[in-house]
């Protein structure tokens, strides 16, 4: 704001002023700078920016001004002049930066929050497992609380499922139970499932785990033995990661020569991958066509009532709608997952499994619906995948059992004891581990698919690949939930609901998103009512859930979530190397504290940058004007700059000074400026052009020159030149107004070209090294200061009586103030104002002539002193004042001539300055 560093130069010339002495004076107030400061500077008790800061500030300051009987004229900024817009643009860029920072900080805070929650869990779980691990694990597994997922398949659910449905809403009370330390297995199940989901979902997707994927040996037999679809997805994942994160995975070669080989290896690896992918794709295709027929058959067997209709076809895609399939879900399910389901279904205790199964069912039903078509390929792989996943899930649930599908049968009938054992031991068996990975991979790929789906909707190839996705996504979240429950249960014997909810919410978020994506798709692809019901129920769930978790800030950013999740997954995936495991509790606590600190700092930063980014809106301006109207205070909206208008009013005697903090007022030609009037830490100071001229030899032209040299709102100035240097330049190149600048430029252009430095003064040597832009000195800038666009009305101002009722109403509405507070603030002021109306107290200075002001100023720096002596002597006017000598001499010599005999410096300038202090010009001749 203003001329860079000018206030510092002028500091010594100001003298303290008491506001009482300003009573009855008409003073212009540059409100624009206030509002900016009010909006940015004001905070409430918690450090948040106050929403009505501008009004509160204005109100208080009006009260202050009226209290002292000052007659304010408020001046608003108008449009920024073109010159200033450039500077404004720079400022805006800065603001955007602030915004960004603020956003970053909030993200980080969220991350920290999650981290901390996770750590709490870790600490708790540690305690619990040590203390009461047994208790928890001996309780029976009767999962009555269902995951929201189940509501997706209402028709397939038996009685239990009714309970399940309720369970969804019963979740919150669970919280208390948990806190009480109860350890119902089912709750834990619920929990574990969810956390697993997350682990699965985000674990591999997180940046930290890329290495895991990348470390897979694509050529290994193990890999090849995987189902083709999983192979395919892993491969495409690897490819994707390579594409985006290559530098993170393989460090760049240090020598530049080896860079090309580095690139070449990269290319080769890529090619290899794509070859593999193509091969897998081929295999998949073959499988699909086979299984397509199978499914079709199945459907025929199962669903007599199934109605299928072709909705639309494209070159590569066919959408077929199949109705009535849902009704048949249980059966389909049985067929699909015979081994698993049949044994489990009647087993009430194995609810988890059934729930998983249900999900599976979901998956199945969805998939057939999605695309019975020529390219059936997606379906089967997905089904197999689901199977696989579910199997591995169940496996996972029974951590210990390293069994494949059939084992699940046994295990599912085995009692919960097994689980507990598994949980207690947590020894990841090889197969378990691999299966974990599988789950992760599949889930992750789901995510990836989703991502891709959203991103690459347009590319046809991808679409074929991705076709199942919208459908999968439907199931994916449900699956997630299912799995989640399992895992959290296992590893977190003491689920913490806070985080649970959070995780939950995120799942929901995710789901919501998925739904969002899906919906339009479905509208196109199918008219199936059931489909829609599905979606709707899903949405409901989402809504309900998010209601519950309102307290948490929802992070909707998917990437963001991916970033956030690793921390939790790391913790939850017991089978995998747990980074938290090695940590002692104290360390965790320590880390928590550290994060607390970090949080605090971040919060501060966020608030600070949010404040910086706030802008003075038009509405704020109009609100302020409304308040001023109620107070009966006149205001002017300057066509352009408020400072210019203030200076104009001052010059023309319409006001007797300006309250501003903006040093632009000086080049605009202000006479009297009151600074720090509303600064609690500093006393109000009065700067007069008279003092400045007598002490520093500066006048409007010199101020403009300083602005040109050191930079202001209108020009960025010359790099390396501040006000003091500007003074030196003016001393070195004396001249009238801009003449001095032109001389300087002329000399510089010549001197700059000379190769050899000639003999010159030290200052000139320094000046020669400056880099002066070719546009310097800009007459446009100078003219902008000399002839600013202002309202040239010479009408004098009038002040009305404050409209008490109006103000009360306004303050109540806009600032939520009570009547008492308003009255407490206003009534004394109004009374004072009324008293003033009856009798007015003039100042003693209006009766007694002002003599010479003492010349005891703050010591100026040597440089400044040297520079001013010459500006004064060599300047336009011969300002040889006795004061000059005096001011530099010691205190004792100050008034050598006696105060009455001393020629007053006022006299020198009285002619060109406007009358300043009432009497000063009428009786100023007495000295």
């Amino acid at each position, binding site marked *: 704001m203003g001329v860079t560093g000018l206030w510092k130069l002028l500091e010594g010339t100001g*003298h303290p002023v008491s506001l*009482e002495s300003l009573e009855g004076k008409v003073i212009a107030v540059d409100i624009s700078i206030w509002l900016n400061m009010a909006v940015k500077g004001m905070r409430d008790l918690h450090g948040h920016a106050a929403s009505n800061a501008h009004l509160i500030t204005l109100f208080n300051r009006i009260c202050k001004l009226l209290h002292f009987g000052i007659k304010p004229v408020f001046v608003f900024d108008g449009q920024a002049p073109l010159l200033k817009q450039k500077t404004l643009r720079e400022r805006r860029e800065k603001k955007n930066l602030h915004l960004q920072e603020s956003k970053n900080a909030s993200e980080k805070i969220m991350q920290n929050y999650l981290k901390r929650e996770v750590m709490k869990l870790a600490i708790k779980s540690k305690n619990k497992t040590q203390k009461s691990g047994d208790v928890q694990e001996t309780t029976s597994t009767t999962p009555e609380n269902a995951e929201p997922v189940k509501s997706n398949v209402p028709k397939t659910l038996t009685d239990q499922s009714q309970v399940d449905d309720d369970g969804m809403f019963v979740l919150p009370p669970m919280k208390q139970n948990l806190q009480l330390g109860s350890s119902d297995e089912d709750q834990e199940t619920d929990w574990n499932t969810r956390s697993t989901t997350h682990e699965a979902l985000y674990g591999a997707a997180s940046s930290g785990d890329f290495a895991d994927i990348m470390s897979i040996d694509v050529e290994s037999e193990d890999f090849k033995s995987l189902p083709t679809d999983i192979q395919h997805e892993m491969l495409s994942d690897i490819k994707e990661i390579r594409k985006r994160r290559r530098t993170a995975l393989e460090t760049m070669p240090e020598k530049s020569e080896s860079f090309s080989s580095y690139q070449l290896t990269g290319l080769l690896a890529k090619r290899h991958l794509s070859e593999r992918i193509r091969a897998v794709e081929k295999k998949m295709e073959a499988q699909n066509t086979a299984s397509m027929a199978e499914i079709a058959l199945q459907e025929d067997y199962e669903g007599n009532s199934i109605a299928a209709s072709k909705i639309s076809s494209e070159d590569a895609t066919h959408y077929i709608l199949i109705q009535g399939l849902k009704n048949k879900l249980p059966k389909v399910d049985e067929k699909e997952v015979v081994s698993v389901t049949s044994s489990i279904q009647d087993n009430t205790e194995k609810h988890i499994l059934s729930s998983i199964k249900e999900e599976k069912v979901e998956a199945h039903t969805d998939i057939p619906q999605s695309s019975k078509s020529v390219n059936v390929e997606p379906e089967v792989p997905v089904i197999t995948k689901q199977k696989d996943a579910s199997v591995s899930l169940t496996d996972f649930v029974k951590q210990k059992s390293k069994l494949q599908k059939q084992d699940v049968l046994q295990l599912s009938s085995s009692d919960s004891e097994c689980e507990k054992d598994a949980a207690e031991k947590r020894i990841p068996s090889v197969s378990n581990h691999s299966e974990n990975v599988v789950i992760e991979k599949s889930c992750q790929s789901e995510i990836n698919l989703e991502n891709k789906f959203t991103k690459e909707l347009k590319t046809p190839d991808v679409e074929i690949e991705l076709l199942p996705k919208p459908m999968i996504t439907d199931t994916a979240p449900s699956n997630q939930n299912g799995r989640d429950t399992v895992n959290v249960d296992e590893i977190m014997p003491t689920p913490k609901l806070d985080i649970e909810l959070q995780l939950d919410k995120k799942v929901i978020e995710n789901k919501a998103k998925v739904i969002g994506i899906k919906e339009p798709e479905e509208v196109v692809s199918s008219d199936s009512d059931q489909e829609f019901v599905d979606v709707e129920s899903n949405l409901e769930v989402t809504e309900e859930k998010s209601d519950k978790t309102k307290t948490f800030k929802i992070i909707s950013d998917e990437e963001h979530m991916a970033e956030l999740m690793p921390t939790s997954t790391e913790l939850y995936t017991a089978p995998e190397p747990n980074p938290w495991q090695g940590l002692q509790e104290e360390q965790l606590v320590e880390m928590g504290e550290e994060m607390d600190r970090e949080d605090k700092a971040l919060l501060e930063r966020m608030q600070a940058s949010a404040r910086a980014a706030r802008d003075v809106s038009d509405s704020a301006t109009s609100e302020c004007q409304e308040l001023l109207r109620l107070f009966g205070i006149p205001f002017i909206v300057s066509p352009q700059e408020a400072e210019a208008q203030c200076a104009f009013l001052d010059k023309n005697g319409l006001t007797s000074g300006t309250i501003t903090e903006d040093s632009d007022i000086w080049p605009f030609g202000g006479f009297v400026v009151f600074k720090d009037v509303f600064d609690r830490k500093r006393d109000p100071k009065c700067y007069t052009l008279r003092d400045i001229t007598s002490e520093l030899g500066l006048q409007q032209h010199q101020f403009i020159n300083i602005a040109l040299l050191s930079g202001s709102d209108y020009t960025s100035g010359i790099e390396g030149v501040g006000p003091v240097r500007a003074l030196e330049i003016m001393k070195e190149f004396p001249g009238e107004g801009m003449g001095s600048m032109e001389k300087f430029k002329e000399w510089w252009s010549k001197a700059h070209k000379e190769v050899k430095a000639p003999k010159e003064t030290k200052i000139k040597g320094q000046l020669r090294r400056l880099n002066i832009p070719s546009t310097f000195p800009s007459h446009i800038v100078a003219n902008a200061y000399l002839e600013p666009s202002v309202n040239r009305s010479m009408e004098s101002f009038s002040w009305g009586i404050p409209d008490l009722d109006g103000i009360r109403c306004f303050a109540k509405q806009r600032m939520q103030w009570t009547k008492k507070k308003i009255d407490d603030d206003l009534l004394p002021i109004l009374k004072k104002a009324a008293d003033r109306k009856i009798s007015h107290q003039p100042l*003693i200075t209006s009766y*007694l002539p002002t003599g010479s002001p003492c010349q*005891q100023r703050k010591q100026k720096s040597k440089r400044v002193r040297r520079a001013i002596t010459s500006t004064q002597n060599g300047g336009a006017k011969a300002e040889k004042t006795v004061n000059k000598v005096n001011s530099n001499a010691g205190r004792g010599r100050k008034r050598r001539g006696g105060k009455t005999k001393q020629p007053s410096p006022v006299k020198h300038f009285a002619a060109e300055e406007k009358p300043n202090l009432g009497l000063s010009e009428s009786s100023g001749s007495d000295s």
Partner: protein
Amino acid sequence: MFEARLVQGSLLKKVQEALKDIVQEASWDCTSSGLSLQAMDGSHVSLVQLTLRADGFEKYRCDRNLAMGINMGSMSKILKCAGNDDVITLKAEDTSDRLELMFESPKGEKISNYEMKLMDLDCEQLGIPDQEYSCSIKMPSHEFARICRDLSQIGECVVITCTKDGVQFSAKGDMGSGTVKMSQNLGAEKEDDQVTIEMTEPVQLTFAIKYLNMFTKATSLSGSVCLSMSNDVPLVVEYKVEDMGHIKYFLAPKIEDEDNDD
């Protein structure tokens, strides 16, 4: 080098009392002719002017004009350390930023030395024109103090009306009004108790009582006070400081018309 020895130290203490309420910081000007001070109150409505002539001091030396910026609060604290009968000596080097104060007990058995930091003050000097006043009223200082104190209970402003008959002080406020009238009383035994009014034309002026109450802090300096008034000029309230000088207060009158908003 500046040095001034005042046998009647209590005078300086009283002067200080008379100044400290109205000004927080002031510049004491030391010249060969004596000590003087001029300062406005914070609101620039009143002005105090003090003169202590060199001949009033037992010893006075001032080689070079000095302006000592003094914080009145600090000065009061230090002067409170002086006994009423003490002899006070002020000393300052030309280039020093300290003022030395020495208090000697009358019998010379106790000598206290104090040093006070001086400050750089930024003061504005007003020219005080020599002026003939329409009215000048001399009255016992304690009476004036009493009137001001009483009327300040009634209202914030006092209207001083001076006619041939005497001088009338009146105040109006929310709860009512009050008037005190003083008539000429040349028959009093002590000169200080006399009330004399010299008048060329009647005068009526309004003043804010709070300033008058600050002025009456000087009551102890002198038994009588002199009020000088003319229409539309500041009131002058003058207290003599023995025979060595005076302290004068100037107060701008209040203007009671609504038209004059400036």
